């Protein structure tokens, strides 16, 4: 085998070229079985009898794009609250627990009224930060003390993190959730013999959630923001760039929310949010693993059938304004000099999204155009890449490169644009397009290998608009022609639709460079 001749290799490649799209007569498909309850909740099931587990989850069709100024970050914060228990899970005295929560809220309402005065003092320049601990007026300290006493009383009745504890003791693992601009996804893996536990726990938190520890959890979210946004080299600037790129659309604010909004979110707002968006008709569940479909149907009806259909949540109506001028951001950070070019393109399942995926495929990879040109031929970058980010309501195409040696972000920008122009104006070799399509054929299989990853794809695609995308994507992408690629290259990559982020190493750090 090691003595394989080039001739043998060429033969194999030629064979593959002819077979690429039809290795098995068709592209990979996931055998998803779906059903819907009378209350509108959809279930997707993929049986994997070889496993000893079931990985299960659900998506609420809501994310930060459903928010508005004043409550930014509520989707993500709310995701945290869904782990705080239910009427039955998390307390030894449900009646008193609920009373305490009401009493706490009364105090917090008074605190928010004081914060209104604090913001007034802040506007007048009397204090530097309306929420700083050392700027607290005495009445706020008094209220805080009363609130802390209620927390202590509630804690004495609580069974801490019982939701997690029950799952953990039964051998469930990987419990987590994430929130994006468009979706909120919850997931866990349970031993196959404990499938009913998942139905019990998940339906209970949709039926009878109790938002305990609302205000200490808010501090955790502040820490999460510090962790992801404020303590990373480029986090703050990525947030700024997003805010700059999206003008009118709700994608303009960060998923984690503005800190000043987080500071005044109320329990009442959380309850309204839950009632609006966590209706069964706005939720889809998925299960991948070792189970009988009839059992899943029976359990779904028995447990989730108890949920009542609610009015359809409001649509996101704000469309992104047509961009009329090029935008530029210049940031200094503890980072390698780099550039990002971002163009307004198209959302999830738009008919041009497939050609844009192929276009990104031509640019990416070790043999792709960006690496070959910027890293190998010109030696101006240490890395470069591109991707089409198809969100639910709108999309963007990004190109990024990190500078090497004496190169500058401006030089990288020119080189990236030159590659886009080449795609638009020059012929695309057949073999190069075929390479990208071979990768699509293969990845259509590879992405089914992990049950957990398969579950996430089903839930996210469903949240973005249609889970069937998982079975349509490969065929629609394989149908893309050279002409399609050249057409989208001409249509979407012009200066007026573009924002550019230039990152320079900041002066303080530059000084410590040799």
């Amino acid at each position, binding site marked *: 085998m090691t003595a*394989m001749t080039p001739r043998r290799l060429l033969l194999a490649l030629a064979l*593959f070229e002819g*077979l690429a799209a039809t290795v098995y007569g068709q592209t990979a498909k996931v055998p998803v079985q779906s059903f819907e309850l009378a209350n509108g909740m959809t279930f997707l099931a993929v049986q994997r009898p070889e496993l000893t587990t079931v990985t299960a989850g659900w998506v609420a069709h809501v994310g930060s794009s459903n928010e508005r100024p004043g409550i930014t970050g509520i989707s993500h914060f709310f995701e945290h609250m869904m782990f705080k228990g239910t009427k039955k899970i998390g307390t030894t005295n449900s009646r008193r627990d609920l009373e305490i929560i009401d009493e706490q809220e009364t105090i917090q309402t008074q605190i928010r009224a004081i914060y209104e005065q604090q913001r007034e003092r802040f506007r007048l320049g009397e204090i530097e930060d309306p929420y700083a601990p*050392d700027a607290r007026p005495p009445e706020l300290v008094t209220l805080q003390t009363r609130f802390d006493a209620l927390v202590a009383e509630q*804690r004495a009745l609580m069974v801490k993190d019982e939701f997690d504890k029950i799952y953990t003791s039964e051998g469930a693992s990987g419990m987590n959730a994430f929130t994006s601009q468009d979706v909120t996804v919850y997931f866990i893996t349970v031993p196959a013999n404990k499938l009913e536990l998942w139905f019990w726990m998940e339906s209970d938190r949709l039926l009878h959630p109790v938002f305990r520890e609302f205000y200490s959890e808010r501090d955790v979210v502040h820490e999460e923001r510090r962790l992801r946004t*404020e303590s990373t080299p480029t986090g703050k600037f990525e947030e700024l760039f997003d805010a700059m790129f999206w003008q009118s659309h709700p994608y303009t604010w960060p998923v984690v929310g503005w800190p000043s909004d987080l500071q005044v979110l109320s329990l009442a707002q959380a309850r309204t949010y839950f009632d609006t968006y966590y209706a069964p008709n706005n939720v889809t569940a998925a299960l991948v693993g070792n189970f009988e479909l009839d059992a899943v149907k029976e359990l779904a009806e028995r447990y989730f059938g108890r949920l009542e259909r609610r*009015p359809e949540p409001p649509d996101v109506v704000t469309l992104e304004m047509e961009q009329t001028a090029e935008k530029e951001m210049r940031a200094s950070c503890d980072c390698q000099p780099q550039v990002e070019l971002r163009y307004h393109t198209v959302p999830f399942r738009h008919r041009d999204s497939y050609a844009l995926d192929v276009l990104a495929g031509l640019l990416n990879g070790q043999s*792709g155009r960006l690496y070959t040109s910027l890293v190998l031929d010109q030696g101006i970058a240490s*890395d470069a890449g591109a991707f089409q980010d198809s969100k639910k309501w709108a999309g963007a195409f990004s190109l990024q490169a990190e500078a090497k040696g004496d190169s500058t972000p401006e030089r990288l920008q020119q080189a990236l644009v030159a590659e886009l122009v080449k795609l638009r104006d020059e012929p695309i070799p057949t073999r190069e397009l075929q*390479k990208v399509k071979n990768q699509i054929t293969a990845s259509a299989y590879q992405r089914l290998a992990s049950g957990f990853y398969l579950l996430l794809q089903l839930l996210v695609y469903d949240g973005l608009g249609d889970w069937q995308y998982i079975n349509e994507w490969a065929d629609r992408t394989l149908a893309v022609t050279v002409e399609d690629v050249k057409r989208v290259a001409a249509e979407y990559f012009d200066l007026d639709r573009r924002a550019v982020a230039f990152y320079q190493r900041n002066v303080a750090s530059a000084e410590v460079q040799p």
Partner: protein
Amino acid sequence: MSRCATLLLALTVTSPLYAQVIRVAEPDTIPDRPETIAFGPLDFSVPDGDAYRHQLSNGVVVYVAEDHTLPLVSLTATLKIGSYLESDEHVGLAGFTGSLIRSGGTERLAPRDFDEQVEFLAASLSSSGGDTTASAGVRSITPVFEESLALFFDMLRHPRFDPERLEVEKGNTLEAMRQRNDDADAILGREWSWLLYGNDYYGSRRMRKQNLDAITRQDLQAFHARYWRPENMIVSVSGDVDTPTILATLERGLADWPGDGDSNRWPPPESMHVVVPGVYHVEKDIPQGKVLIGHLVPQWTDWSNPDRAALQVMNHILGGSGFTSRIMKRVRSDEGLAYSAGSSFSFDPFQPGTFTVSFQSKNETVALAAKISLEEVRRIQEELVSDEELEIAKGSLIQTFPQRFDSAGQIASTFAYDAFIGRSHEYWQLWRPQVEAVTADDVRRVAQQHLKPDEVVLLLVGKWDEIAKGDSDGRATMADFFGGAVTHLPPRDPLTLEPHAGS
């Protein structure tokens, strides 16, 4: 809530008709509590590692686990070599050789042609070099696996180490080195490994610019020729393969490559570093302090020792199991001081392992979170854990165990790792009974034996003036640790790793 949404809430919705009619449930068939649900048994038995084990005529051990669910094949060659084999002037050579095997082309194919052929096959080929292990792998869909494997063998045995590609890689590595102080976590990891293992130990030393400049193509060729050899290699294969067929293919591909001698000085040398407990700090202008607290624990080679199970149960209760663990409960859930907080206890077969508490908190509350974490470490040494905690930890460890064998890839790599560290496959048969046998007394005993809360290294990256004075309610300050003594570690030049002049 927006006005728009409030108005919508008042609307009624007509139910559409569904093709599939599902019967209405009886509400009283829902158990009152999840604990009262009756579960059937789980159908699982621990697979026998020996059943997957094979040996080629040149001595290479191969583990093959078939899975024909999808047309995908994966093969990994793991080698018992690494940076422990480098000389002092060649720091970084093992890693560089590892990455250049993949990126530097083959004697037959220039790097660009090799990359293009790999990507045209939509295969994934990789190679890398670490401290005590190097590996190379190939993944592809079944119809082109034979062609992909031919490229893999070509890469593994006849790498070109193309001079131009070497220069590209050196330039990229230099850029990566420039970023060494950009992210607080990178500083934290570097200083932590130096404090625990010393900065000249193979597992913790870092490549400096002078090492990078000194690396030549001949060095790579020599390291490859000397160490990337069959006698150091274990192969694992999983997926859509037929065992006799893949073994015959491997035999053909490797038969003319005899494995002889012991070229690799296995096992790697131990660290001689003497750890000095105390508070250490690196200044970084970030709003959140990054913290590691811990110490070395003994190297682990006796895999039949049941204390391994007791230590795992102990760490699960203390800080290893997310929300259910004590440190997470107090630091995050009760106090809201951190997004993530927990502990780990590592069983390292080649060097002392580490017990580590880690979290990140706004600078002002770093001391408070550290104080709470150490209180919990002391408490698990002093008090017996509750029966409930013990049962949850054991239940979790035992019931999540089958997942370790839930795919062909995991089966092959798990047993190949046994062979790599010289552990009997019997280990997995003993695993659950040993966990089942752990008592509260065992947990306290191993905590007393292995945890040393008074002899920790407490490393902080963040703003010292804010960290030192502690929280606004006066619950903790850094004066609470080691009598307030602190060693301020100097900022380091990212390329030479020497302290900056004047610091």
